[in-house]
């Protein structure tokens, strides 16, 4: 039992370990530790990764077992560690010998520099080096197994004593101050006020770079809230959402830029036109796909999004849209004769947009319209039988979502002073969908959090350079396994009237008794 689980886990762990070494993640860890924690050399980070991988293998092997016994746990840990250590050691032996023979591995594996391998061999000959890494992995795997076994025992004992596990939220609420703030509406409002003030003064301190990035996050919040209406509330999986973003952006660009048309309309006039045209585009897309659901809808909308992008750069329309080169010198907003088209002012502008989008979403969510959308998402047929004209409500959802996308598109084009086909690739749709899912489908704070994580985190991870996307992808996968409902899932509305205490207590048991006495 322990042996088989150990061997299987060891194999998986070995593959992961060798893969991470081959793509050079150990060197990345080394450099990160150097720059973040001022560690003088890069080897502590390198070996930290090795030890962590060993700990993970041992811990995972024990976690996979059902029967609890120390012997089994150590057997599983040891077998996992031996397999992982032996295979990783063999790989290192090969790499080190080939490098020693004078072959430059970088021709095939770009990260396999002399330095990278030396960090693992520590200057030893290939064979002892292989033995060393194997030993380190074995010891860490044993330690990981022992730690996990201990944790599981503590957990089981706690359950046996009748203590239930408490969530982080409950633990936080146990702190008196937190409980008081969260239950008192006034202090919540004060907290919101403080947060708002912080947001309002933030641009004065943040500087150009972060103002710009926060603006981008804001634009994605608006996009996310719009898509949340379509996907989260109405349950229509729209993968071509970027099309409406493009309609908004191109409307702003073509109406305000000097080229290719000499309209040069005011920003303030072009903005509502962009929103309106996007909403109309939403309805136009909506009509042909009304009868589709799920996968079919996703495919058709995906196609629509690509059509818009390809049209915008096609030769036929170059005269109208500016073609592949896009549109330059998109107009800025001008207020009282002052050009307010820089990051600083746009921050506030986007903030207003975000607040508007939040208000719109909140008001719709718990209205007759929002309920009809959510009913449609849950069961379209039954929604129809309840008197909901589903075609009309689908078009409304598409139009609302598209209008928000159009708004953010218009602002996006004006802020960048430029727009072109490359702004509207499929990845934008995917990113917005991902942020809605990661944040928590149907939840407003979830969407905001999701936008910060998806657009903000890559900026923070910038130090990881080439690994940014890899780390980010891994985080998304882990996130979907650990917390599939999203970071901040939608909460249930509390609509039932609070009743007097004793009445409520009597009510429930009477309910249960009724079934037994009733006949």
């Amino acid at each position, binding site marked *: 039992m322990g042996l088989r689980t150990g061997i299987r886990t060891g194999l998986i762990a070995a593959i992961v370990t060798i893969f991470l070494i081959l793509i050079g993640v150990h060197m990345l860890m080394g450099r990160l530790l150097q720059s973040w924690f001022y560690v003088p050399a890069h080897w502590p980070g390198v070996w930290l990764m090795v030890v962590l991988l060993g700990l993970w293998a041992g811990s995972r092997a024990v976690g996979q077992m059902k029967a609890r016994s120390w012997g089994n746990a150590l057997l599983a840990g040891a077998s996992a560690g031996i397999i992982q250590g032996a295979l990783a050691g063999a790989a290192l032996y090969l790499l080190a010998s080939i490098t020693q023979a004078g072959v430059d591995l970088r021709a095939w594996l770009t990260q396999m520099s002399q330095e990278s391998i030396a960090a693992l061999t520590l200057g030893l000959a290939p064979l002892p080096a292989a033995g060393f890494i194997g030993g380190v992995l074995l010891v860490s795997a044993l330690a990981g197994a022992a730690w996990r076994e201990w944790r599981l025992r503590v957990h089981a004992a706690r359950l046996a004593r009748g203590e239930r596990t408490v969530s982080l939220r409950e633990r936080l609420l146990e702190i008196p101050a937190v409980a008081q703030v969260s239950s008192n509406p006034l202090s919540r409002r004060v907290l919101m006020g403080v947060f708002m003030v912080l947001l309002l003064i933030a641009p004065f301190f943040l500087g150009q770079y972060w103002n710009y990035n926060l603006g981008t996050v804001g634009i994605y919040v608006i996009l996310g809230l719009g898509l949340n209406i379509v996907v989260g509330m109405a349950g229509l999986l729209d993968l071509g959402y970027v099309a409406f973003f493009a309609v908004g952006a191109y409307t702003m660009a073509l109406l305000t830029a000097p080229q290719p048309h000499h309209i040069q309309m005011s920003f303030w006039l072009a903005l509502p036109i962009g929103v309106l045209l996007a909403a109309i585009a939403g309805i136009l897309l909506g009509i042909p796909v009304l009868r589709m659901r799920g996968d079919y809808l996703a495919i058709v909308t995906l196609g629509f999004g690509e059509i818009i992008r390809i049209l915008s750069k096609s030769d036929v329309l170059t005269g109208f849209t500016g073609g592949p080169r896009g549109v330059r010198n998109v107009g800025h907003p001008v207020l009282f004769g002052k050009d307010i088209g820089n990051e600083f002012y746009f921050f506030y502008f986007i903030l207003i947009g975000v607040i508007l989008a939040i208000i*719109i979403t909140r*008001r*719709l969510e718990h*209205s*007759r*319209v*929002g*309920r*009809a959308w*959510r*009913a449609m998402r*849950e*069961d379209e*047929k*039954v*929604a*129809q*039988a*309840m*008197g*909901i*004209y*589903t075609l009309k409500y689908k078009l*409304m959802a598409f139009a*609302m979502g598209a209008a928000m996308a159009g708004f953010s598109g218009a602002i996006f084009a004006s802020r960048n002073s430029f727009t072109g086909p490359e702004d509207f690739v499929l990845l934008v749709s995917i990113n917005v969908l991902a942020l809605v899912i990661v944040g928590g489908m149907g939840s407003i704070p979830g969407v905001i959090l999701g936008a910060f994580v998806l657009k903000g985190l890559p900026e923070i991870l910038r130090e990881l350079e080439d690994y940014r996307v890899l780390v980010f992808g891994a985080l998304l996968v882990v996130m979907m396994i650990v917390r599939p409902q999203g970071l901040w899932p939608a909460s*249930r*509305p*509390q*609509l*039932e*009237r609070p*009743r007097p205490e004793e009445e*409520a207590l009597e*009510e*429930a048991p009477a*309910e249960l008794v*009724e*079934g037994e006495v*009733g*006949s």
Partner: protein
Amino acid sequence: MNILELHGVTKQFGGLVAVSAVDLEVPQGSIFSVIGPNGAGKTTLFNCISGFYRPEAGRIIFDGVSLVGLRPDQIAALGIARTYQNIRLFGRMTAIENILVGQHSRLKSGLAGALFRLPRTRREEQEALDKAHQLLDFVGLSGYGDMFAHNLPYGQQRRLELARALASEPRLLLLDEPAAGMNPRETEELMAFIRRIRDELHLTILLIEHDMRVVMGISDIVAVLDFGEKICEGTPQEVRCNPRVIEAYLGKGVA
């Protein structure tokens, strides 16, 4: 006076005739049961009435209005509500929200009303919420209003589905095997409750059931379907003794 009349309603699926030239006359205020073995075409008949299927032939007239060709939501707005054999609630909405959705066709506010919080909309929402509370009490679900529908126990889900159907203030209530999955005592309670609904809310009930014993006690009229055809109709007593009914249920040779 008949609130619902079916004349020669026929529904085919390819070569299969699911419902064949069925006539029904449902008097106002009655409890009318349609029974028949599994696969007799009962649910198909329901789907024709509520607008999900369009019959190939025949007329369906509800209170003087022809229903054939109308959309399900239009039919619902005319005052027909239904429940389902396998409960179909809006799972990730709370019990109260389910009832509020049930009121959809009785409410008017639209996008503008919700976005600008017009006084009219706010008043309407408040009234709708009050009514939802009343219905929650009426079906005995007070205390469960804020729970997600899919977290309710089976029996409560059945009641919630009834409350949701009643929320649209229907004149005709279609119940598709409401006693499915219930034990005999629960079934008996449910039947008493159905009679109470009819008496207190003054509506007509059209009931589908495959177990004929269930409906005998409460039905005014019973119609029996077999292989899509109506084989007999009458009071429960008359139907029970009809040799063709016995044959349909128990097979040839028993009668």
